[in-house]
């Protein structure tokens, strides 16, 4: 059996270059925007989860685990189709997309923050409290400066994954890179070339970022 022959031809894509660039722009905007929002959510959640009050931590644990233990694709669809029914309001696709992506990555950031803080030896708390620091002062002056260094590598990894995660918003018709790819496919009937190109673009953006993250990780490890 010989493989079916197929005449690859990428040249038509040039005609769609602006559409593709626009899609890439949306993908990058969603990535950066939801990383920043997620960071705020994750920092707040991660730090508040360290509280001793069950009243405060229980809902936060629920939030983190619900978002970590369900597929992102399901979350996006649920927020877009089901949540409007539950709340009785209209949720536009871009709002649902930003909300879910931020909450999703925020849940992972929260765990990174909590893990980073918990990774600092108990003795640091003892020493800081022994000279009369209060909880907040210990956190700000002793624990966080050390913990942040340990949070940076996992934070960078999670953020790189986030760029790929944004591709799922194409399912609710947010016009990101993958969505534009789907549109071009519909117009040209050449999915092989289109999705190859989409893959290459994701790779070209992410691979240098991955290398950069590794570089930072090595530098931090050496500084320890």
């Amino acid at each position, binding site marked *: 059996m010989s493989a079916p022959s197929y005449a690859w031809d990428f040249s038509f894509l040039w005609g769609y270059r602006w559409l593709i660039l626009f899609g890439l722009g949306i993908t990058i905007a969603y990535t950066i925007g939801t990383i920043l929002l997620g960071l705020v959510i994750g920092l707040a959640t991660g730090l508040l989860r360290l509280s001793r009050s069950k009243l405060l931590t229980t809902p936060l644990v629920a939030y983190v685990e619900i978002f970590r233990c369900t597929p992102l694709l399901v979350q996006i669809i649920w927020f877009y189709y089901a949540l409007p029914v539950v709340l009785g309001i209209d949720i536009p696709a871009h709002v649902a997309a930003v909300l879910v992506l931020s909450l999703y990555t925020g849940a992972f950031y929260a765990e990174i923050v909590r893990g980073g803080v918990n990774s600092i030896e108990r*003795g640091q708390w*003892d020493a*800081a*409290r022994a*000279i009369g620091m209060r909880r907040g002062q210990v956190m700000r002056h002793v624990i966080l400066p050390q913990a942040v260094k340990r949070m940076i590598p996992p934070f960078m990894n999670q953020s790189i994954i986030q760029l790929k995660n944004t591709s799922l918003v194409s399912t609710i018709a947010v016009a990101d890179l993958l969505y534009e790819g789907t549109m071009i496919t519909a117009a040209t009937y050449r999915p092989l070339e289109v999705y190859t190109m989409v893959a290459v673009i994701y790779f070209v953006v992410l691979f240098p970022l991955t290398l950069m993250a590794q570089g930072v990780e090595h530098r931090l490890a050496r500084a320890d």
Partner: protein
Amino acid sequence: MSADTDAGPMIEIADLWKSFGAVEVLKGVSLRVGRGGVIAIIGPSGSGKSTLLRCVNLLEEPDRGQIRVGGREMKFGERRRSRTSDRELAAFRAATGMVFQHFNLFPHMTALENVTAGPVIVKRMARRAAEAEGRELLAKVGLADKAEAYPTHLSGGQRQRVAIARALAMGPAVMLLDEVTSALDPELVGEVLSVIEKLAEEGMTMVIVTHEIGFAHEVADAVAFMSDGVIVEIGPPAAVLERPDNPRTRNFLARFHRSRASPV
């Protein structure tokens, strides 16, 4: 802290109880240390020595009993308040210097920053004034030239001396030393002990948990032997260390001498 001109003891612990879950670690410990007094606490591991120290500066909150350090007094267990406030605890601890077995220096700060952290952050002292005092304290522990060094670049003995300076920077009424030489290479023990000796000569009130029996003999006014959560025997070093009354003390010291005598 200037108002405590009373002639009473500097540290007074009365009937202190502490358990972790089902494990009772302190079972009614009472102890008095006079102004300028130095008490060494010896005893097998798990006897509650470290927990006692951690309770005295409230790193652990006792279940029951009473602690007075300098002019400050704390009672536990009678009023059923759920928790002493963070602010109260912090103020109490600031007046009680504590040095740990594993130094616990802040690795992201230089030696000088470690020493000034308390005065600057807790006492809100001006940085320049704190640094001047900090340098004096570092000089006092023999580390004037290491002010800008980070802990990773210091030996164990140097780290522990920075830790002592850090505790002194808060101007504590008493110093609590928790096995401060146990994590040190043998050749570095002496430099730390001589700093402690100097503090004793200057009249610092201290409670020293230690395995250095010889040092306890030399520097302490009294030695307390702890076992199983209680102080079994307390008295002058010569009495407790050379002619212990209690069989448990004798047993401990005998084992101790044997292990020390055997060449490693």
